[in-house]
Structures are given as structure tokens and as C-alpha cells.
């Protein structure tokens, strides 16, 4: 184990997989940086959040490829290269920009295997950052994992810790299906113990973040730490929680969630997206359908409101779930009569 940041853990996974398999290639805007500059040596940017740092120096421009600002081109090139035997890891700088390349993901990469009768594979990874918390306003703060999770054929991973960042990205690169890999932009500097050497975290296997008796909290990404803070405060009031991080929303570890709800009898789902047709409503529906007789209180969802993400600090703060809001909602559920 070595203490690493979320960013370093991701770089570690990319580095190890590129060294292990020459078919793994990285492509995206400024993943090298400085290309074509008559003044600078290429390689100094390594992605706007630094995740692809050092890959160009190690593997060269043939395998760490700077791309123009052409999201549809990047996603489509990755999908085509994957069909033809490569394992591209493409970067879309902000998940909001997936709007520009949705056709390549939704109509192309996601459907090749099915449409071609199981005769094709598209082992690509599309890394992207998501989430609010940096006052980056409506077009740089969205969390689009529910929309992508709804597309059959795409897998969706969203690590909440540095160790999972490495383990899930390694698994994503080795997976035979297209994986959309959501990195929370506020977590890149988060530190934690990361296994050295090869580290794989299986898809569809939740992480039990903490165990308790009174309520189940399901969340992903940055919302996990919000849940942990809320659970600590609730423990002072004698309320204990299971916190479950599914780690991949597709495939989804339904058993881990349902087993926990059967035990606690209560469920609060926390997510930073708007509420409609969301990850939260999906998990709530799962519990209501499968373990209704175990429920002691209505299932609750804590999400953003049905609005775009606003710019001003006060507005963004009001949009987002918070440890306090989680604590209040869990108290309400536990005290439900």
C-alpha cells in the first residue's frame, strides 16, 4: 500500500495497463499538452486534471495522443479503434461535453455487440469528470451518470476513493465492453491507501463503506464522504447506518443494496443529480419492488432539484445535498411512525 491521491491512483492504473498491454492507447484533448507549440516540449499538461501525466514521456505520441477539440471525433475514433482490436482510453474533459459525442456512445459503441449478433467487441474506456462543487456553472458541473446508465451496452464506473479509482480503471481497461468512467472533479486531490502493483476491483460488486442497523444510505462518488460525515453525526444520536457504494451503476450490485435494506428496514439514496429518472429513483424503485415487506418507513431520495446546476456559491450550495441534509432526512426516516 502507498498513500496516493485519486489522481495519482488513476495515473498508476493507466501506466500499469499501458505497460502490460501495447493495445492500450490514450487519447484526448491536452492529454499530452503543448503539442505543436514552437516553444514548449510536449507533455507538460498531462490532461487538464493531470491524470495522463507522464504517459507521453513513457509511451510516446503514438500511444498517448493529443486530439483537437472534437469530442465526436474522439469518441468515434476510440470506438472504431476498439472494434479493430485496440483498447483505447479516451478522455472527454468534462462529462457535459458528452453532449457533443453522444451518438458515438449511444448509437455506436453501446450497440455494436448486440446489433452484430455477439460477433463484435468494443473494449473502450471513456474517462470523464463530473459533478458540482467548483462553481463551474451549468455546462461544466453536471452529473450525467443516470442518463448513461440507462443505455444498455454501456458499463458505468464511478470511484469514490483512490484505491477504487485504480482498481475500477484497471478493470475497465481489461473489460471487453465500452465503459464510461466518471471521475468526480472535486476528488482528484483526495488521498488514501492504494494497493501497489496489479489491483482490480470487480464491476457489479458494491463497497460496504460502513455498517449500522437503522438506515441504509446508498450513494456514489463525492456523496460517499457526505454520507460518512452525516453518519458520524447520527451516531452521536444513537442512529447507525449502512453506507453502500455500488461503485458501478451498470452493472449494479442489487443484492448488496437489498440485503442491507432488509436488515435496516429503511433506505435513503443520495445523489447530486436532479431527481427525475435518476440513479436515486432507480434504487428507490428497486427497494420498493423487491423488499417492500421489510420497509419500516418510506424510501427517501436526497438529490439536487429539477434545475441545471447554478453558478453562484450560495446557489450551488443550495442545489447540492449536504451532510446536514442527509442527517435530517435519515432522522426523519428513522423517526417515521
Amino acid at each position: 500500500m502507498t498513500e496516493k491521491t485519486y489522481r495519482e491512483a488513476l495515473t498508476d492504473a493507466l501506466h500499469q495497463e499501458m505497460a502490460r498491454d501495447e493495445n492500450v492507447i490514450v487519447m484526448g484533448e491536452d492529454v499530452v499538452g503543448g503539442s505543436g507549440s514552437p516553444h514548449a516540449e510536449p507533455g507538460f499538461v498531462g490532461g487538464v486534471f493531470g491524470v495522463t501525466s507522464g504517459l507521453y514521456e513513457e509511451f510516446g505520441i503514438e500511444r498517448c495522443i493529443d486530439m483537437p477539440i472534437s469530442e465526436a471525433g474522439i469518441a468515434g475514433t476510440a470506438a472504431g479503434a476498439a472494434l479493430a482490436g485496440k483498447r483505447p482510453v479516451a478522455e472527454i474533459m468534462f462529462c457535459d461535453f458528452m453532449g457533443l459525442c453522444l451518438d458515438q456512445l449511444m448509437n455506436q459503441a453501446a450497440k455494436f455487440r448486440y446489433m452484430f449478433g455477439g460477433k463484435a467487441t468494443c473494449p473502450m474506456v471513456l474517462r470523464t469528470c463530473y459533478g458540482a462543487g467548483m462553481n463551474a456553472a451549468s455546462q461544466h458541473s453536471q452529473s450525467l451518470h443516470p442518463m448513461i446508465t440507462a443505455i444498455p451496452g454501456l458499463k458505468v464506473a464511478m470511484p469514490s476513493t483512490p484505491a477504487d479509482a485504480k482498481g475500477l480503471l484497471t478493470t475497465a481497461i481489461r473489460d471487453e465492453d465500452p465503459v464510461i468512467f466518471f471521475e468526480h472533479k472535486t476528488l482528484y486531490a483526495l488521498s488514501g491507501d492504494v494497493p501497489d502493483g496489479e489491483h482490480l476491483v470487480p464491476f457489479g460488486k458494491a463497497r460496504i463503506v460502513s455498517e449500522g442497523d437503522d438506515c441504509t444510505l446508498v450513494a456514489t462518488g463525492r456523496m460517499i464522504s457526505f454520507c460518512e460525515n452525516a453518519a458520524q453525526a447520527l451516531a452521536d444520536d444513537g442512529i447507525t447506518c449502512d453506507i453502500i457504494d455500488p461503485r458501478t451503476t451498470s452493472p449494479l450490485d442489487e443484492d448488496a443494496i437489498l440485503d442491507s435494506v432488509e436488515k435496516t428496514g429503511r433506505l435513503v439514496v443520495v445523489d447530486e443529480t436532479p431527481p427525475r429518472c435518476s440513479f436515486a429513483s432507480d434504487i428507490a424503485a428497486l427497494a420498493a419492488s423487491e423488499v417492500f415487506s421489510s420497509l419500516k418507513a418510506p424510501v427517501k431520495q436526497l438529490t439536487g432539484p429539477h434545475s441545471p446546476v447554478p453558478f453562484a456559491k450560495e446557489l450551488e450550495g443550495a442545489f447540492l445535498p449536504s451532510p446536514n441534509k442527509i442527517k435530517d432526512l435519515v432522522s426523519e426516516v428513522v423517526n417515521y411512525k
Partner: protein
Amino acid sequence: MQLAREELEQAYKQMKTIREFEEHLHREIMTGAIPGFTHLYAGQEAVAVGVCENLTNKDYITSTHRGHGHCIAKGVDVIGMMKELYGKADGVCKGKGGSMHVADMDVGMLGANGIVGGGPPLATGAALAAKLDGKGGVAVSFSGDGSCNQGPVFEAMNIAAILKLPSVYVYENNRYSEHTHCSYVIASESIASRVEGFGIHTVKANGLDFFEVHEVMNELITKAREGNGPVAVEFDTTRFYGHFEGDPQDYRAPGELEDDRENNDCLKIFKTKVTEAGLLSEEDIGKLDDEVNSLIEESVEQAKASPLPSAEDVTTDVYVSY
């Protein structure tokens, strides 16, 4: 083409307002008072002003993530913009948009844009509306060198060409698409030569010289207004600050920025031209500088004193009715 004294004063004042607006933000961002991602336009003022001085309120523009200059040049209220950047309730977008989404429909400013290449299709649509309205309006899209590699931009230009729309595609080539040099990401000889392939009359010109920009645009915009179909222009220019505030700009040569500030500053070039030709005196310019500085000071004072938005505002304006 000889500009009247008032036109010269107006042009200088607009360029200087943009410059001081951006210089203030550059200083203030370091203090943490401005939230979010900010991209400064300083260095490119001659383009925004040289274009917009040929437009009226019946004309439209679309802009980019580096949009403050376009907004000011098109007549968006500077005080309301400053309030917006400070995230205040009475900002032009009520604190909901911030730097990347400043907009004002009343002056035909259809929005700064967080998506590279987001603007040209919108300008194409605004040009369609202008054509249907039949009042001689045009729509101008400002976009950077990076945007010329986005597919939707190609589609928009082709649509404008086949429909003979009064749209004007202005490409500001400041040489760097974020942190990557344009020579690496643009395979054609120039942006202009690529755009010509769409059957659009295109010009390449010096974006550092206000007079050249103004003259070229006068000709192109007149052509578009008269119903001859879309036009385009590539302006060579430079930016004084990074892709975003905080970008260390390691991709630029040692001394490159200093050289740009010294020799390629569009404001200096303007001043030299008008004073040497005896059109405006140093004193005239000093007076305009004072006016601009008071406006910026006033805008900052008001922005700092303005009320913060409240939590209830998060869910307003999502729809007109729901």
C-alpha cells in the same frame, strides 16, 4: 475609410473597458473573490470591438467561454456583468450563469458559451430568424481556433451556405486551442482556407489592428446584410492570459507574452495610429482612460455591495411555466 472623432473615441473606450474589466478580474481572481472558471479576453479587444462597431441592436452575436469582450462590445451593461461574475442576485443572469454564460437578449447577445463550437450553430439559427424577419439583421458567431475542429460548426456553415443566410463566422485565432498549438490541431493551411471549402466568402486579416478589423467587417457584414449569403473571417490575434485563469502558460516561449504586450498590444497599436495621425491627442485618450477606470471602479463597488442570491432562486427560471 475615415472614422469620425466620436467613432474613434467610442472604439477606444470599448476596447479599454474590456481591457480594464479583464485586468481587474485577473487581480481579483487571485484573491478568491470570483468563483468558478474564468477565461480572459485581454489582447483580443480589437476583434470584438472592430466587429461590433459595425452592428446594431437588431443584429445578433454568439460568443465563447472567453466571452467578456464580446459582451461588452455588443453593449451588455458592464456593471451588471461585474455583478454576475461576483455571483450576485442582480447580475445580468441573476448569478446563475457566471463568466461562461453572460447573455443579454435585449442587445442581441445570445450568450457566452461553455461548449467549444456551441456558438456557430446558434448564430446560424439567429441568421435564419433575421432572414425571415427581412429587416436586414445579421448574426455573428465569435469563436476561437479550437472551434473550427468541431463537427457541429461544419454542419452549421454548410446549412448557412445552402440557405444563403446572413451569418458571419468570425474565427479569432490566438494560436492556442487551450494548451495545444493550432499548427498541431488544424491540418489545413489556415482556418480561412478550410471555411472557403464550404462555399463561403472568407477573408484572413490582422486582428491586432482595429482599423483593419473594422474595415474588413464593414465590407463583409454589408455583403451579408444585402442577402449574398454567409461570410467568414479568420483574424490572427493573441491572448495575454492563459486558457483559464491559473494556467501557467508553459507552452509559450520565454519572453513571448512580454513581446506580445510590448509589440502586439491592440490598444497600443490603436493609440499610436490615432495620435500620430493627429486624430486624437494623448490628452483625449487620458480622459477616456479616466472615464473607463471610474466605470470599472463603480462596477466593482456595486458588485461587492450587491445582494447574494437566495436558495429559493435555484429552481426559478428553469421553465417559463411548468
